[in-house]
């Protein structure tokens, strides 16, 4: 690295080689963004905001018909297949259930960009109302880079991604996390639970059954609560030695036009991050991209001055520079071109808890607004940063490391080397030498990490880069290469991480559709990873992340993989990794996993409707015990839907004890629901009865027809009670509707 005492003002860090990728990059990113995506996004936001009212009446009005008509169900049961067929294009199918989760997972592994701004910059931004300074200002915009980003993978084929993003972290306050993450593992999971609690508290009160998204009628979608859970679970992790996803890939160094000694300040900022107080921990690779930003104050300063300074910066630092023109006045709602600052999507649980701002409810109180021109400027800045600097830099690094480190290992001689090394270890015969020195000797046992310049660490970093660039084929093969190294060195956390990510990349890779054999291998890998995380490192958040990823990705594979998906979810519940709310959520997920299994074409069998229904009933029971009747009723409704085509026409269970249990559950849910809304239960019951009778007469007709078709003598026995419950159900629904 450059030494700080150099006379030259600030050298551009040697870590990038300007030229090759960047020159090409201009032409490589044609302005071909499709306009459908923003529209869809707007739609999503829209539905998120207004979700409380519309779905309720819609769903409840449809309910009796829905639960009783198997034809509609068979149509619905074919949706997982559709989802699978569009698996190659995660972006297109972003809004049906499975793909949405998949996209969420992919987006959670985004490159991290550090932000380090000078004092005058932060001062300028604070005037605009952002207490956190420059970092807070640009953070929400980094999460979704506008337009399509084209990424070239290791074999040279390009692919455009609409949903790429980066995470900005504040380098100025980055010191505490490492100690936190190792000691406070259960707290972080407890925090996730707390976030869920809070989310429930805010959304549960106003209107109960609103937890389901709008397209509930078409798809068995995941509940928003689960997405909140997943998002927070995936953003728990802070920078740790064993994986480099949270290590900064680049850092933005910002000064403002108010600065009196701009180049001097830039030099100082650079020195701070490279070997000053803001240096990254020892286990982070210190060669990362530096990006220099000059913020021009449109309201106070002269653009000519700033342009001159910017030209000077460009001369010094090359092309990784940007002139960002912002207004320094604070924007208020009443201004003409005020635009609300979007919410951060990826907050860690700690931030969410301390932040307090609740996106769904406090829309108006959240008073951060920006001028339209500022937003345009920031978006353009971020797009340029990501498209022309960060991604080419990462591509370049991957190519270089692949060439210099990985190919050496992959070749014949590399294999032989590692093999002979292993044998030499056994040859000496002493176990202690194996453990202390490790097979390679690169693992620092005392501190528990590899130095960043060892081949093991570099390979891991390369694999992580490839993963973040969504080149899952390369990352999978690299993780595979690493697994045995880590095992030899007994670097268990690394070991677990490599197994986990290897399996995840294999599942994400759309080309390698799983055969049965492959799935077994993947199960094995998850098993090893989970065991290493839990037993050898007692790292519960990572273990839970591993199991959750396993479940979600296997589920999105469909077919026989959903069985193991459900098994991983049960495993997570069994190991006690999730809290009480998590139990409910995971039960619903197990149900969703089984529901995703579609029957053999043309046959009645092969699906897992009964299992799915059973888990939905259990979820309802859990929600009820947690005092969340609205969630319970949603789960019950789902159960009814799932059971509808395995039970005979009247929806009664053949087994008496099941029937009584479900009846009791239904009744309890209804009573609690009404009580939670502060209504007089007796009155409601009376009116409900009145309302119910109307519908039953119609229903009776239907059932008569049905019965004459089936003519099963045993049905008459089950008819009585089932009829009663159906009435209850209708009654409850009618109440919903009136609310």
């Amino acid at each position: 690295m450059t030494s700080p005492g150099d006379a030259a003002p600030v050298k551009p860090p040697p870590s990038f080689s300007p030229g090759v990728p960047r020159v090409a990059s201009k032409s490589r990113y044609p302005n071909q963004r499709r306009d459908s995506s923003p529209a869809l996004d707007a739609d999503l936001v829209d539905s998120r905001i207004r979700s409380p009212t519309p779905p309720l009446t819609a769903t409840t009005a449809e309910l009796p018909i829905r639960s009783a008509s198997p034809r509609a169900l068979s149509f619905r049961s074919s949706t997982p297949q559709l989802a699978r067929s569009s698996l190659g294009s995660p972006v297109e199918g972003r809004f049906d259930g499975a793909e949405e989760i998949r996209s969420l997972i992919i987006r959670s592994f985004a490159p991290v960009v550090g932000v380090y701004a000078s004092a005058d910059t932060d001062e300028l931004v604070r005037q605009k109302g952002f207490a956190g300074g420059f970092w807070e200002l640009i953070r929400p915009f980094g999460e979704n880079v506008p337009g399509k980003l084209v990424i070239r993978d290791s074999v040279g084929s390009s692919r455009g991604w609409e949903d790429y993003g980066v995470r900005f972290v504040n380098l100025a306050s980055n010191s505490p996390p490492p100690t936190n993450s190792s000691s406070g593992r259960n707290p972080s999971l407890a925090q996730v639970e707390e976030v869920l609690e809070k989310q429930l508290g805010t959304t549960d009160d106003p209107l109960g059954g609103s937890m389901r998204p709008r397209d509930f009628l078409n798809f068995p979608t995941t509940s928003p609560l689960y997405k909140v859970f997943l998002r927070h679970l995936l953003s728990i992790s802070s920078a740790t030695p064993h994986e480099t996803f949270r290590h900064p890939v680049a850092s933005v160094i910002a000064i403002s036009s108010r600065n009196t000694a701009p180049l001097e300040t830039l030099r100082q900022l650079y020195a701070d991050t490279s070997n000053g107080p803001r240096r990254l921990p020892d286990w982070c690779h210190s060669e990362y991209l530096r990006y220099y930003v000059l913020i021009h104050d449109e309201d106070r300063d002269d653009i000519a001055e700033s342009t001159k300074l910017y030209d000077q910066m460009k001369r010094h630092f090359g092309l990784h520079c940007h002139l960002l023109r912002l207004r320094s006045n604070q924007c208020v709602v009443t201004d003409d071109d005020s635009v609300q600052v979007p919410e951060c999507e990826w907050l860690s649980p700690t931030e969410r808890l301390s932040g307090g701002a609740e996106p769904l409810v406090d829309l108006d109180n959240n008073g951060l607004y920006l001028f339209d021109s500022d937003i345009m400027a920031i978006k353009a800045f971020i797009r340029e940063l990501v498209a022309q600097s960060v991604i080419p830099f990462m591509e370049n690094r991957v190519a270089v490391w692949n060439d210099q480190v990985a190919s050496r290992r992959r070749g014949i001689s590399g294999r032989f080397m590692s093999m002979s090394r292993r044998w030499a270890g056994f040859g000496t015969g002493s176990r202690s030498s194996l453990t202390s020195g490790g097979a390679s000797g690169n693992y620092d046992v005392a501190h528990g990490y590899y130095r960043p310049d060892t081949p093991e660490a570099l390979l891991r970093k390369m694999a992580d880069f490839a993963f973040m660039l969504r080149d899952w084929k390369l990352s999978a093969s690299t993780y595979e290469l690493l697994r045995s190294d880590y095992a030899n060195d007994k670097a268990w956390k690394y070991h677990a991480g490599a197994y986990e990510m290897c399996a995840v990349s294999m599942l994400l890779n759309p080309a390698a559709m799983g055969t049965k054999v492959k799935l077994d291998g993947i199960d094995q890998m998850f098993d090893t990873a989970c065991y290493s995380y839990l037993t050898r490192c007692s790292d519960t958040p990572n273990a839970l992340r591993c199991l959750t990823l396993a479940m979600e990705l296997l589920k999105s594979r469909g077919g026989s993989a959903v069985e193991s998906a459900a098994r991983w979810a049960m495993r997570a519940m069994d190991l006690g990794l999730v809290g009480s709310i998590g139990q409910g959520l995971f039960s619903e997920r197990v149900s969703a996993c089984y529901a995703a299994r579609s029957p053999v074409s043309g046959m009645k069998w092969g699906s897992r409707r009964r299992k799915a229904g059973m888990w939905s009933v259990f979820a309802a029971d859990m929600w009820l015990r947690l005092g969340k009747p609205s969630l319970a009723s949603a789960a019950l409704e789902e159960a009814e839907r799932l059971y509808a085509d395995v039970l005979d026409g009247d929806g009664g269970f053949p087994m008496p004890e099941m029937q009584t249990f479900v009846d009791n559950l239904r009744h309890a849910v209804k009573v609690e629901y009404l009580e939670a809304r502060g209504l007089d239960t007796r009155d409601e019951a009376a009116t409900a009865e009145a309302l119910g009778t109307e519908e039953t007469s119609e229903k009776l007709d239907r059932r008569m027809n049905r019965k004459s078709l089936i003519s099963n003598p045993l049905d008459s026995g089950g008819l009585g009670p089932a009829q009663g419950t159906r009435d209850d159900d209708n009654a409850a629904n009618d109440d919903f509707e009136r609310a």
Partner: protein
Amino acid sequence: MSYYFTILSPTDVPLFNIAFGTSKSGGDGIARFRFPDTAQYMNQFIIHSSLDIVEEAQWMNGNMYLKHIDTYPPASAYISAFLTPSGARFLLLHQPPQLASNSGQGAGGSGSMGGSMSGSLLLGSAGGSSRASASSIANNPTSPQTEEAVRQFMTEVYENYVKTVMSPFYRQGMEIKSPVFRGRVTAAGRKWL
């Protein structure tokens, strides 16, 4: 080991239910499931849900005895199935006793509904006897010995079932109430399981 045996008609209506415990290696033949007595519906839920697998397995396999087909991991309940030519299905849920060493984990994990409730259910005597029989069929629900024992049990029950069903007073689809049949099933359970 606790057992729950059900005969289901082709339309999934239960014709016969019995719960019993192991009589081998000092067992007293009383079922002790991992659910409290108030949650016996769990057995029916598990059996019912395994019908999904039975429906699939019956087309993949030419035998009448389908062996162990399904597991419900949270309560470690194992299901074995047997098909009769008339379409009735014999389903046997077997659940190994919770080991004393296991109970700590189960209570700590408290993952499933079954798991959380089971800690209180563990009886001292059951724990002791199960320890002694660690190598017997009771604790290895998927071992070949268990498969064989279940097969013997199923075959014997099937013979008795055929005799019962051929009774002139029995109509197809009726619940089997014959005390003789119940006695025979109990005897078969005592003999083989």
